[in-house]
């Protein structure tokens, strides 16, 4: 049995994305002379990066450069999973060298995905700087990794999962707490 509880509505989620976009714009887009780019991590970091780009474009009239990154080849848990999902297409349509990169993911939890993403992105070039934007920070990192732009800070039961959903997947949009290990009680 899976229990799912909405933590934030689509409106609250949109407001948080606007806030992150405004902060990125303030730090990176002041005079337009600094090359910067957003890189979304699969799965949900990809649509999130698109949303942030939408917001920045709405405010400035320019869409920032952006890409998508799959970290499957950089994970540290080979042999610990039951099966392997399909690797998605990494698309970095700009030269990483000298760029300021903002990695975008939906949820910061253990920090292991971000560790892998740092290895992956630096195999494509030598960025001038890397920052991290997340919609949800669970505040329980296993690695010393912190986000620079955060939508929501949450303190949840470690056994529960946070699911960020966008309506473009045909899902109900919002941020949800999922108790996926919940077992029916034996009476």
């Amino acid at each position, binding site marked *: 049995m899976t229990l799912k509880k909405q933590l934030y509505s689509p409106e609250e989620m949109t407001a948080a994305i606007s806030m992150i976009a405004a902060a990125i714009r303030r730090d990176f887009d002041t005079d337009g002379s600094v090359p910067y780019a957003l890189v979304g991590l699969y799965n949900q970091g990809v649509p999130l990066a698109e949303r942030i780009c939408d917001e920045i474009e709405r405010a400035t009239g320019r869409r920032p450069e952006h890409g998508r990154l799959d970290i499957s080849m950089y994970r540290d848990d080979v042999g610990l999973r039951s099966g*392997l999902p*399909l690797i998605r297409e990494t698309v970095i349509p700009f030269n990483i060298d000298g760029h300021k990169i903002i990695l975008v993911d939906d949820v910061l939890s253990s920090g292991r995905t971000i560790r892998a993403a740092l290895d992956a992105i630096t195999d494509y070039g030598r960025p001038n700087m890397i920052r991290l934007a997340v919609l949800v920070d669970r505040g329980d990192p296993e690695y010393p990794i912190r986000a620079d732009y955060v939508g929501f800070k949450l303190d949840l039961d470690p056994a529960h999962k946070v699911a960020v959903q966008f309506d473009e997947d045909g899902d109900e949009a919002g941020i949800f707490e999922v108790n996926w290990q919940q077992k029916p009680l034996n009476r």
Partner: protein
Amino acid sequence: MEWTRKDLLSLYDLSAEEITFLLDTAEEFKKVSERNVKKVPALRGKTVVNLFVEPSTRTRVSFELAEQRLSADIVNMQASSSSLLKGETLLDTVRNIESLQVDLIVMRHSAPGAQAFIAKHLKCGVVNAGDGAHSHPTQALLDIFTMREKKGALKDLKVTIVGDILHSRVARSNMWGLLKLGAKVTLAGPSTLVPREFEAAGVRVCHNLKDAVQDADVVNLLRIQHERQSAGFFPSTGEYAKFFGLNRQNLRWMKPDVLVMHPGPINRDVELTSEVADGPNSVILEQVTNGLAVRMAVLFLVAGCVKK
């Protein structure tokens, strides 16, 4: 779907969905070799043994490079220097290898089914790099990958395989893989080397080159081994070349955009002339490039399913 197999033994065992999954994964690995940094840490800390009980150069080199680009540690073993020559059984050899905490064994062996046999007894993963005339799954995957890359969908693609089908694991693996993906397969060559029995698998058998190739989208040529001539399967390589070799003249029978493929090593002026081998229809060297990507994908996926 998710990939869940710790061994790759034969394409006959796989579903169309699994074959497509392998090809899709290989596409991402192909891009790794096109980057400045041609290496990923996917198999860091994993050990792969390349056990070539039957000699091989190009397949072994391709596997070795694939393993290196995945950051695996490698040991190469050849029959000529292994204890198999001292009378040790194959199973004892591979159990000894596994006891060294090896994660994957890539094996070539002259006995059909040798890899399936050892896989049954081992916890580590096993990849078939060729077993007798039975199966050579990574060669077929790289051939099919190349066809898909050049021609798009494999459904209803007309593929003709020409040569020594009888003794060829490449032909058998290609046939099973292509049939699963919905391609139309023709096997062609002298009647001594292309028995009618293959028709039972759902392929067309053809003993005339013109009939076999004139509407083909892909012509895959197999190497003719000279020792087959002394065994009496055909009178001479010259006669084989006259009836089944590709040259500038018979290329005119074919579709202008036909793909000419060959698993190598090529015998110039036997299976094909230099004009064809080095001409615009040939994708022989691209097959070699794609072989690396396909083997990286296979190693990555099976290693991910070997339990600690």
